[in-house]
């Protein structure tokens, strides 16, 4: 057949399908002819895919169930819907809002019963060799460990301080004994090094001393501002080089319920030097002489205790110690030493800090005491409650000793006789044999002192000046 003939056959005859050949329309007549349903020969698309939908539904249901069994932790509908659909499956929620009422953290005399949290601040620099001793103290604290948060500042350290510190702390937190675990532990790293070099002025030895104190103040402020939280009731500052201190020191100091409180700090010495010596001379009561002196000084001048030239005639906490005195006896002071300070957190919250500038002619811990007094907080020292600083003749010490050898300023003479008197007094009592120390820590100290006497070296020196005897005014720049 020819192609045009086939194409011609597709032309629909006009009057054939729509009706009968007689011309009447088909509609309206009763008709049972099967071809009436012919145009709907295809099933509706939804019905056609119904099986597919059913299958998908079954698969989805199985998946859900499967998921439910696979995730035993998040078995509830809740977790399936929120985590299964939204996130990749971390099963924790974030808390972004914190609410604290500061009147709950005022600090009271019985903090350990009221679950009051203490922030323990420890500034460190090249302190690797002291850390073992420090962790011994940490282990022995009787204050509930989980209520103590630790904060360390490691600055400009050239030794292995940081790693030793980390290792020891991680060991504590992994201890099997839950009561050994401490609260929040922060290690703050910050180097102030560059500034030291800028500030050190060789033309005047004491200028360097003043800026050293300012730098230490700065370090303390950085540590505190990074670690103080709204849930702290107390802040305890402690140096690593404390050799002997009662295990109960936190409770002992807290019991006094003072805003700022410090113990007396002495250090043991080899027997030929007198056996013991006042160490921390930064805790003192203000005197008229010192106030008059301060008025004559330049705005940036810092009176640094311990490098004698001017006599300020301040009563020092250290020299007032009586080994058999009442350890609970209190004494109001104006300057404080930084070896071991317990303060209510609100002191720091209200803004008292360690001035890294000359505040009323003082810086660092002494300025801290001054500022606390300015803001009408109680600042108290315990003359007969003693902790013991490590004795180590440093290069600095020896140099200083040589520099000042034979120096007989009035303050030094006064200091020396006072110290010797105390030593004599103690020896008399020891000789008597009857007097027994009433404090456990004091016994410990004595035992250690005995040991030291046995192993002491054959150094020969007639005299040794107390490391921080007398005062010196130095000027920064």
């Amino acid at each position: 057949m020819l192609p045009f003939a086939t194409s011609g056959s597709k032309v629909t005859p006009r009057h054939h399908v729509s009706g009968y050949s007689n011309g009447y329309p088909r509609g309206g007549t009763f008709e049972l002819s099967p071809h009436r349903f012919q145009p709907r020969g295809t099933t509706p698309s939804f019905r056609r895919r119904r099986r597919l939908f059913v299958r998908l539904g079954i698969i989805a249901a199985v998946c859900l169930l499967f998921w439910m069994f696979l995730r035993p932790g998040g078995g509830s509908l809740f977790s399936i819907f929120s985590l299964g659909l939204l996130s990749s499956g971390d099963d924790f929620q974030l808390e972004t809002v914190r609410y604290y009422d500061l009147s709950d953290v005022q600090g009271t005399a019985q903090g350990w019963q009221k679950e009051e949290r203490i922030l323990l601040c420890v500034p460190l620099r090249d302190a690797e060799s002291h850390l073992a001793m420090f962790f011994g103290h940490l282990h022995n604290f009787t204050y509930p460990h989980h209520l103590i948060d630790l904060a360390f500042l490691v600055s400009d350290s050239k030794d292995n301080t940081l790693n030793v510190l980390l290792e020891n702390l991680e060991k504590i937190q992994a201890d099997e004994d839950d009561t050994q675990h401490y609260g929040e532990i922060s290690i703050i790293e910050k180097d102030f090094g560059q500034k030291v070099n800028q500030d050190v002025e060789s033309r005047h030895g004491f200028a360097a001393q003043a800026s050293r104190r300012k730098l230490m103040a700065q370090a303390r402020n950085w540590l505190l501002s990074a670690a103080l939280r709204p849930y702290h009731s107390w802040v305890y500052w402690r140096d690593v080089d404390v050799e002997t201190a009662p295990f109960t020191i936190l409770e002992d100091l807290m019991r006094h319920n003072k805003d700022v409180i410090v113990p007396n700090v002495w250090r043991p010495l080899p027997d030929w030097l007198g056996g013991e010596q006042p160490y921390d001379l930064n805790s003192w009561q203000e005197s008229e002489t010192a106030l008059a002196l301060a008025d004559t000084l330049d705005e940036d001048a810092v009176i640094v205790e311990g490098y004698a030239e001017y006599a300020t005639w301040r009563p020092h906490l250290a020299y007032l110690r009586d080994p058999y005195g009442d350890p609970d006896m209190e004494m109001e002071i104006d300057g404080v030493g930084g070896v071991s300070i317990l303060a209510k957190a609100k002191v720091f919250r209200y803004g008292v800090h360690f001035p890294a500038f000359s505040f009323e002619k003082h810086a660092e811990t002494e300025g801290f005491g001054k500022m606390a007094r300015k803001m009408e907080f109680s600042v108290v020292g315990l003359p007969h409650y003693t902790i013991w600083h490590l004795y180590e003749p440093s290069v600095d010490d020896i140099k200083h000793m040589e520099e000042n050898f034979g120096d007989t300023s009035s303050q030094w003479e006064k200091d020396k006789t006072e110290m010797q008197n105390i030593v004599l007094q103690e020896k008399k009592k020891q000789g008597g044999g009857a007097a027994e120390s009433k404090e456990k820590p004091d016994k410990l100290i004595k035992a250690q002192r005995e040991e030291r006497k046995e192993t002491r070296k054959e150094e020969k020196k007639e005299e040794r000046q107390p490391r921080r005897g007398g005062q010196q005014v130095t000027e920064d720049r």
Partner: protein
Amino acid sequence: MARPMGPVRLKKTNPLTLTIGIALCIFILYFLLGSSAPDFSAARKATAASHPLSPPTSPFRQSSPGAKLKAPPVTRYNLNNVTITNTPVENRENVLVLTPMARFYQEHWDNLLQLTYPHELITLGFILPKNKEGNAAYAELDKQITKTQRYGPEKDRFKSIIILRQDFDPPLISQDEAERHKMQNQKPRRAAMAKARNSLLFTTLGPDTSWVLWLDADVIETPPSLIQDLAFHNKPLIAPNCFQKFYNSEKKKMDERPYDFNNWQDSPTAQKLGESLGADDILLEGYKDMPTYRTLMAYMYEDGGDVHYEIPLDGVGGTALLVKADVHRDGAMFPPFSFYHLIETEGFAKMARRLGWQATGLPNYKVYHYNE
């Protein structure tokens, strides 16, 4: 007549209806159960602390109620790596916005929300007194916080929010503007304010804050790019000029007037006046019976002047103030006592100066205070 209806019915209950039904069920279930648990992106979760005992400037993981809390981890913070630069967004620097709040203003909150600085880098800190007024302000603040942090879009949600209640009573002075600004009421009022600011600052600063923005609760309008704009100058302390919008009945239209008079440059007269005062007395600004002749930034505004124009300042106000965190870390605080005869924010500028940090002002960059 029995018409076969079967096929018609089948057609009506078609699977599309079923599918829609199931989908609706899932949606209802999802919104019923899932909406109470909004979630954060993995990136945000990664920056969260693992224990509730952690710096409040970071969110922390909520532990499941049954689980026993583990001993807190040993956490290292290297403050040598906390940068403070003039491109804070690029360097992902954390900003702490601190606000002492006695009254809640909705406009203040709305203004915070419209800040364009990435909200995941902003921590808000509030301190409210513990009295009736404080409770009312807290209730409103809490409502807005829940709305944003819980139900708001993630980009609106702030990194964390800290609310503190003061542990001391504010001096009994009415909050009425006229009474509040009386001279003899100023010292106790500002001393209490200084304590509130210090409490807020030193408990929230934490180890990873780069900038601290002080913004009073009654500052209701700032440019959205406030943080970036101020940080751009890279100054230790920088204060914009605080104005107030009011209805000028003479001109019969809205007008503006200077508001914060604590941003000033010192004068020899004020210095001399200070010397004549007792050790605990303070110098105040903006009072007729104490003319100090200081140069006030409030009056240095020039219409159409360069918004980046900088001037050195000796005293700052706290209405809006951007401070490098290092200044506070060095110890610069708001003295609640007479410090060189200055108190609170003005004393703060002086203390910062003593620590070697100079304050700067932007006379042509304006923010607006609420009009009572």
